[in-house]
């Protein structure tokens, strides 16, 4: 496909389309000139805290709601009802409350990352085999031990599925919040270079976005393989 694209670009093209080789050249240039890296840093400084905090709260509350009936009845209806609401609409409200800076973006990303993690951890914990829990209790495990040694490991595969969705969502929200209002970051870079007709820089930023999304996903899969090595071994 890349080859086709390159060949198609040989026969003249409008300014806003670049051939892959040109994009690659500009990418290396931007990397060396330092035009790109500060924006990458700014984006990561927004998305990582949001992702970590949001998914951590989501996983912990989801697991607890999966095992504790009181918490389940308190939290789950609210979470499941507000789940299909597009979280980006809260950006303006959050902007009003905590200001237009990085904090509003982090809060929205946190909020968006919370949901998939909560739901997956919840079903993961609820799907724990009752026989395992019973045998654990029967053999004298305390409740906290049962939770740590039985519920958490059996929920982990779903937790990772939730983390993967959250990570993708955090990137989507990061770039859209940055496109809407920001003074730095890759989303801002895309918008700014687009409006100043620097198409080379725009493509560089898009490639960087794609690379970040891909790298994040691969990293998560790597961690998953590490942590869930027993599952792959068992399913083989």
């Amino acid at each position, binding site marked *: 496909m890349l080859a086709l694209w390159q060949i198609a670009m040989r026969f003249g093209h409008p300014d806003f389309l670049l051939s892959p080789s040109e994009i690659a050249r500009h990418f290396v240039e931007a990397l060396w000139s330092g035009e790109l890296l500060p924006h990458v840093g700014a984006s990561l400084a927004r998305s990582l805290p949001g992702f970590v905090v949001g998914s951590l709260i989501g996983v912990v509350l989801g697991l607890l709601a999966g095992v504790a009936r009181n918490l389940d009845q308190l939290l789950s209806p609210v979470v499941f009802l*507000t789940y299909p609401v597009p979280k980006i609409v809260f950006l303006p409200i959050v*902007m009003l409350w905590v200001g237009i800076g990085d904090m509003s973006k982090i809060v929205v990303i946190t909020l968006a990352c919370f949901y998939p993690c909560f739901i997956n951890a919840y079903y993961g914990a609820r799907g724990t085999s009752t026989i395992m829990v019973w045998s654990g209790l029967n053999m004298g495990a305390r409740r906290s031990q049962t939770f740590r040694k039985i519920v958490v490991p059996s929920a982990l595969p779903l937790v990772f599925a939730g983390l993967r969705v959250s990570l993708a969502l955090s990137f989507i929200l990061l770039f859209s919040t940055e496109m809407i209002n920001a003074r730095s970051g890759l989303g801002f870079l895309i918008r700014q270079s687009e409006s100043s007709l620097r198409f080379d820089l725009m493509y560089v930023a898009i490639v960087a976005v794609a690379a970040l999304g891909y790298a994040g996903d691969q990293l998560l899969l790597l961690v998953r393989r590490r942590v869930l090595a027993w599952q792959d071994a068992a399913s083989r």
Partner: protein
Amino acid sequence: MRALWSGPAVAVRRVALLGVGLIAWETAARSGWFSPLIVPSVTRIGYQLWLLATQPDSLVDAWYSLARALGGFALAAVVGVALGVLMGRSTLVAASLGPFFSGTYPIPKIALFPIFIYLFGIGSLSKVLLIFLECLYPIVITTQAGGRAVNRVLVWSAANMGASRARILRSVVIPATAPFIFAGFRIALPIAMIVVIITEMISSADGLGYLVMYSLASFKTDRMLAVVVVIALMGVALDRLVVRVRDRFVSWERLDSYYVD
């Protein structure tokens, strides 16, 4: 304890919880601690909601958002189910398209929006196509998983009883894949809503996303919150609709309580 929570008591408690939340909000708004710009009172938001529901202008905005979201979603549904079933049933198609889909899956497609604006103009087309692209992935991936999981014995028996390939596809493969297809739809529809609102916030002169940003920029936060409520209700309603349609088509298998109610 269990009996107390089930049945109508749950509904009563939920309404009570909602009521308490609204009253707390209203008290906070009227306490004078916050500027009415930051925390507008519930009554003012309600009034703006009433205006939104009765003014033709805002109905047009809601219609634009809905049409874009559903247009992109419908396109993705048709293409995605076709591709997914093909990829699920044919190893050749799966081998040629699979790497492409799994490789580009984690890339946030929203980054392509500026290019889409240049390619397809700043109007609805660029938004609909971006929604199509974002919705396509979950639908293709879940449909493919479903197509692969079709019980072989069913396909073999149908073939044995003389069904043609088209007939097997229509009467065996598609129904067996349907639960997966609808699972994909349920992931994709909220994404369609997110993307339509985002793209309208970034660049648009109509639609609910634009209305949110416009109300904020003109310091009408009560109006902004009313629009947010409308968007939220639309998201929930569309999701309910998918569940309804799913229960219609997949009548033999109830959805296990993805929703607690």
